[in-house]
């Protein structure tokens, strides 16, 4: 076991910090406030001139795709170093990592052609994927998905509907899970396709979240104003859009989801509130009352801080596993239970430390830190739902990690 960073990694952190400080201009921050869509402002191009310019500078430093192989547009560095770059940028609201991008799954399961086509452009920000996983009736039961892809010569014809296709309105491609064989056990008939958003037959309809009216400040947990539902109406895609083999999409998707969870972004959305509240109570008083001296608040802050350390260490464990080849049994699920629930506990505890101030939203008189604590409360639980709910994660820990048996379950119609 080694809990330290190498001198080179520490130097990298200082280098990234030194870069960030002069580059975070007031104009850039204003543009970022406008672009904020949760998980930080991403590299997706063409959204704003100052963000584009910043990402060009970051790319020139070689900090995009830091741990991806050089032949696919990365830098071939270790995963921990990539984490350090991600962490420093995530703290200022910029998402340089590739968590949630689909890139790790392509690296693991894509053909050579797909890797060469997609990875360099995902890394540079020229491409970005909307994730087409769940559906109106599916919720967390992803394997019950009904969206159909039917082979027709060299093409597949896709019909169905996807829910919560976040960023579908700004993405270049969709990473879609669809059913290719309805006559086999439900996990065995699913395939993954990647194709451009502008193919005929796709419609994207916005769904507005509760968290962004008024607009959530930068750094809000989750923080997205908008997600989408996406409709597929006789969408024809070439067979080369398949990622991995036909009907083996469940394995590719699960592995991709595990890898997509690893990194600084998910860790920081769960724990940055802990830093915020400690630093806030150190610096602020209400008339003569200092929350920093309140024994109940001190005890709760320490408790949350300790929980946050566990979030960090579970993230470090996931990255250690990736460095050793990425063979997760339950550890990714453990991280995905602990960290989101911790984030909720912190968001709720802060409301009980600040009392009525915690209800003030962005722009209100007397709002604390632009109302971020109120906006957080509306979205913190979201992290326990998206990308695999904490209940499903617990099922996976129990069954895959601990070998507990599957029980009788309500059997829906097999799709």
């Amino acid at each position: 076991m080694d809990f330290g960073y190498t001198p080179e990694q520490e130097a990298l952190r200082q280098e990234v910090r030194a870069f960030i400080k002069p580059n975070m201009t007031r104009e850039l921050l204003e543009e970022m406030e406008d672009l904020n869509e949760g998980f930080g402002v991403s590299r997706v191009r063409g959204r704003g001139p100052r963000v584009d310019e910043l990402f060009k500078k970051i790319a020139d430093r070689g900090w995009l795709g830091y741990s991806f192989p050089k032949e696919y547009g990365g830098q071939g560095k270790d995963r921990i170093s990539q984490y350090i770059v991600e962490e420093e940028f995530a703290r200022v609201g910029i998402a340089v990592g590739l968590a949630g991008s689909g890139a790790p799954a392509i690296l693991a399961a894509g053909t050579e052609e797909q890797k060469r086509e997609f990875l360099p452009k995902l890394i540079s920000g020229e491409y970005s994927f909307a994730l087409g996983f769940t559906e109106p009736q599916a919720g967390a039961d992803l394997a019950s998905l009904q969206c159909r892809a039917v082979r027709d010569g060299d093409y597949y014809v896709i019909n169905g509907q996807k829910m919560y296709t976040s960023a579908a309105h700004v993405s270049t491609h969709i990473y879609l899970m669809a059913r290719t064989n309805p006559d086999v056990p439900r996990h065995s008939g699913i395939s993954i396709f990647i194709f451009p958003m502008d193919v005929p037959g796709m419609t994207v309809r916005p769904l507005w979240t509760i968290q962004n009216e008024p607009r959530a400040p930068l750094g809000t947990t989750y923080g997205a104003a908008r997600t989408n539902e996406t409709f597929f109406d006789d969408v024809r895609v070439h067979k080369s859009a398949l990622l991995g083999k036909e009907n083996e999409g469940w394995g590719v998707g699960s592995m991709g989801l595990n890898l997509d969870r690893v990194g600084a972004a998910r860790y920081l959305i769960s724990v940055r509130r802990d830093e915020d509240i400690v630093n806030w109570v150190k610096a602020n008083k209400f008339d003569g009352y200092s929350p920093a001296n309140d024994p109940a608040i001190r005890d709760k802050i320490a408790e949350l801080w300790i929980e946050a350390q566990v979030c960090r260490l579970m993230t470090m464990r996931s990255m250690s596993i990736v460095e050793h080849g990425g063979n997760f049994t339950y550890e990714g699920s453990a991280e995905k239970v602990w960290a989101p629930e911790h984030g909720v506990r912190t968001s709720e505890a802060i409301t009980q430390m600040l009392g009525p101030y915690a209800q003030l939203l962005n722009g209100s008189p007397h709002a604390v830190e632009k109302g971020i604590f109120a906006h957080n409360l509306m979205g913190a639980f979201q992290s326990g739902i998206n990308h695999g709910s904490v209940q499903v994660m617990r099922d996976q820990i129990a069954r895959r990690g601990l070998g507990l048996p599957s029980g009788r379950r309500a059997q829906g119609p097999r799709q």
Partner: protein
Amino acid sequence: MDVLLTEEEKMVRDSAREFFEAECSTTLVREMEIDPKGYPPALWRKAAELGWQGMALPEKYGGQDLPLLYLGLIFEEVGRAVAPLPLHSTVVAALTIAKDGTEAQREAILPAVVRGDAVLTWAFTEQDPRFLPDAVHMQAVASGDHFVLNGTKLFVDNFVAADQCLVACRTAPGSKGDAGLSLFLVDTKSAGLSHTPLVTLAKDKQSEVVFENVRVPRANLIGELNQGGPIVERMLDRATALLCAQMLGATRKDAEMAIEYAKYRVAFGQPIGAFQSIQHVCADMIVWIDGGEMLTYEALWKMDQGLPASVEVSQAKAFCNEKCEAVVRFSQIIHGGIGFMMEFDLHLWFRRVSAWTMRLGTSYEHRARVAHALIDLPGRVVLGRPVPVVAEA
């Protein structure tokens, strides 16, 4: 950064596990609960042959000079087996002698510890149960080339078996806090010493120890006079981190028993482990134990690197106290009535883990230490960077 066990670390853990599986049955554990000394000397010697007492002691005295982290792996297995050995009190005192004692003290004590010929312990707590220097009132008064000790120490682990005991005393009358403390090496056969066994939840061997004009040679002072505070604090930090490892090993075994039980115990027509209400509790148990382990090993690793680790130690103990107790409680609940029966072994773990949560600092005390470092000391905190805040270049 690689928080997974190396091959060598796995070997250390596995060999200790195999040893206890072969040598330490629950029958033995039960026998030692009513044994006056509380441990089997033969097993103690075998542990010495494996080098455990001397694992982290300097090679010069026969030890192996291995990191505390390795010792943590051993203590996890001691906990897993709920092995009735005075290893914790001995190793904690021996490490303090190795790090802060004089050459003469080390030569007199450490080789015997390594050989398995000595049992050590330490005494800190008096009436006030807090692990704070302010809780120490016992006086040691200089008298020629001796100090004279008067007072009462409580909860002294394995005193009944110990040859030597490190004793924290106040040597500057009227002093408070860290200042004015000194640590003495006291022969347990000294005139004026008496002890009364306490009857404990874990059925381990703890004593009230009364010092009546106990004369201790000046040469037995550990470190400088009145400078014992930091020595004691480091000793307690090491003791706490190693106790966390021991708790976690016991707690993991306890959880595994509940998980196995849930696989074959049938109720309502299926194994109870197929019910999600049981599955989700079991998942949480493992998440908590894993979390406690990483907190604990990070603390031990920091000590091995010579870095400040008090905050990390407190993080680990506060977390382990609450989570380990919750795990062993849930394990009792999953077992139902049978876990409440004396003839069933589960209580051997339940009682010990519960007792260990109460020793070496409560959750409240450790969180107070963390809160102090976070809130009362200057600088903006950042998760993953040192707390108290250290200025970075």
